[in-house]
């Protein structure tokens, strides 16, 4: 299923803008003969009818504003989706319980469809930079001088991220980089230790839902170590970044590492990667980093067996394959060999990424010109 282009959503907004604004204005002017012709009861309360058509007209105006400047109309889009959804529900409710004439269901269905359209449009418009990062190759690096030194940061509970980063490291080294890998060490090391117990699994899960941070020991990597590339790898814990990896960014002493440095995000998980990736990118940008790439790699296997396989692995600490589902159960935990190979290719692509031209002082003194 291919995404609808922006212009389709814009034209759909224009269509409902014309229908809502133009249609309601026209309807209010001619509703008496039209209703008589269609055997629709005349409005019992002219004021309420005028208010409803006026409200619908306003939604049309908002839809036109969204058509004109979609990226700047996120709030309007939310409002319109909510308004249309509520109107569709109220129309159905009144049809079922208050003998509303079927004629009004036409508007209810229209609004129900447009609730979906507006929500899809909203999903497209939020964080378009993530779509761009996910659909393009490696972006051009910053103008910061290359030192060919890379830092790989992460935390690995089950050694899955370890394996992923090791392959990225191989790719970077093949591209001429000197690589340092540093895994964050949580201060609460007994809590975040492998294998897990059921109690610690539950505790980590609850903390992940409530986004309780995990402090880490100070990283040995320093800003003046001269890294020109950092790869941050995170797993997903209950839809978000793992608390330990987030702890890297929450330590203000680490901000200097990322300032002006090219950064790539790698999410390794079972299946929910979007929010973890969005959180990582947000943290990197807040820390002054320059995002050049994002990747995600999912565990081997097919759903729903992959999910339950992960749960059993976390609880028992080993691959557990129920005999009943032997044919469908993932044969191993973690990333496939193909995905690991792909990560090595990714590492190499990062090593040979293009670079923005540096700014150089002109010889006439004082003025700066890009080459």
């Amino acid at each position, binding site marked *: 299923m291919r995404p609808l282009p922006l212009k389709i959503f814009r034209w759909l907004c224009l269509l409902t803008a014309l229908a809502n604004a133009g249609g309601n204005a026209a309807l209010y002017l001619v509703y008496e003969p039209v209703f008589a012709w269609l055997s629709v009861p005349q409005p019992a309360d002219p004021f309420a009818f005028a208010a409803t058509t006026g409200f619908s007209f306003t939604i049309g105006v908002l839809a036109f504003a969204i058509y004109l400047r979609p990226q700047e109309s996120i709030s309007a889009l939310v409002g319109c989706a909510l308004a249309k959804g509520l109107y569709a529900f109220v129309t159905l409710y009144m049809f079922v319980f208050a003998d509303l004439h079927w004629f009004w269901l036409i508007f209810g269905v229209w609004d129900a469809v447009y609730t979906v359209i507006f929500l899809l449009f909203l999903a*497209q418009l939020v964080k378009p930079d993530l779509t761009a990062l996910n659909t393009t190759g490696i972006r051009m690096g910053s103008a910061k001088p290359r030192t060919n030194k890379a830092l790989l940061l992460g935390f690995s509970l089950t050694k899955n991220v370890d394996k992923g980063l090791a392959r990225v490291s191989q790719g970077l080294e093949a591209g001429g980089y000197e690589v340092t890998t540093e895994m964050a060490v949580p201060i609460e090391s007994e809590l975040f230790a492998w294998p897990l117990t059921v109690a610690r699994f539950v505790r980590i899960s609850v903390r992940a839902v409530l986004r309780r941070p995990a402090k880490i020991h100070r990283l040995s990597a320093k800003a003046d170590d001269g890294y020109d590339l950092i790869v941050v790898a995170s797993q997903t814990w209950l839809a978000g970044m793992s608390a330990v990896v987030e702890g890297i960014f929450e330590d203000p002493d680490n901000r200097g590492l990322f300032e002006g440095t090219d950064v790539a995000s790698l999410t390794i998980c079972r299946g929910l990667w979007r929010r973890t990736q969005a959180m990582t990118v947000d943290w990197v940008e807040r820390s002054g980093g320059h995002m050049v790439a994002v990747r995600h790699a999912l565990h081997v296997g097919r*759903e729903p067996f992959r999910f339950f396989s992960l749960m059993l692995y976390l609880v028992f600490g080993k691959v557990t394959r129920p005999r009943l589902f032997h044919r469908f159960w993932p044969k191993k935990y973690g990333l496939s060999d193909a995905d690991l190979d792909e990560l090595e290719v990714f590492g190499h692509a990062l090593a040979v990424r293009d670079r923005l031209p540096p700014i150089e002082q002109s010889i006439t003194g004082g003025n700066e010109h890009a080459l």
Partner: protein
Amino acid sequence: MPFDISPAFAAARFEPLLELASLSPHHLVASLVVLGSIVFVNDLVRTSLMVTFTRSRANHVAVMVLTLFPAMLLGGVLLLGASRYPERAPLNLVFAALMYGVWYLGGTLTKLARPDTEAADVGFIMVGSLITIPCGLLALVF
């Protein structure tokens, strides 16, 4: 009193909503339309929330709730339906199963919005069935 705020009045106001929420045989089509709509748009809303307000605890909890909300909703509907129309409990299980298809469709439809989406998370949908099925079984013995 100039207006009625008695419990009976309040109950009367909510009665139509309870009828819709219990898959009443008198308003079955409307019930299914409302229930299906909520289940369908759940993942559309969740898709947007997933990448926004990344530092907000409230948003993260909302995303977690929406991940399994259809399952909890369907479980509640089965129990409410069984309390009001016990003879329809087995049939309601069939409707709940159909709603799982709607849930999957809603997630899949997010692919129309952007390519970088997880679409329908079958893993969590199956986890949802571990919520709905016990509610359905409980409804059968009501």
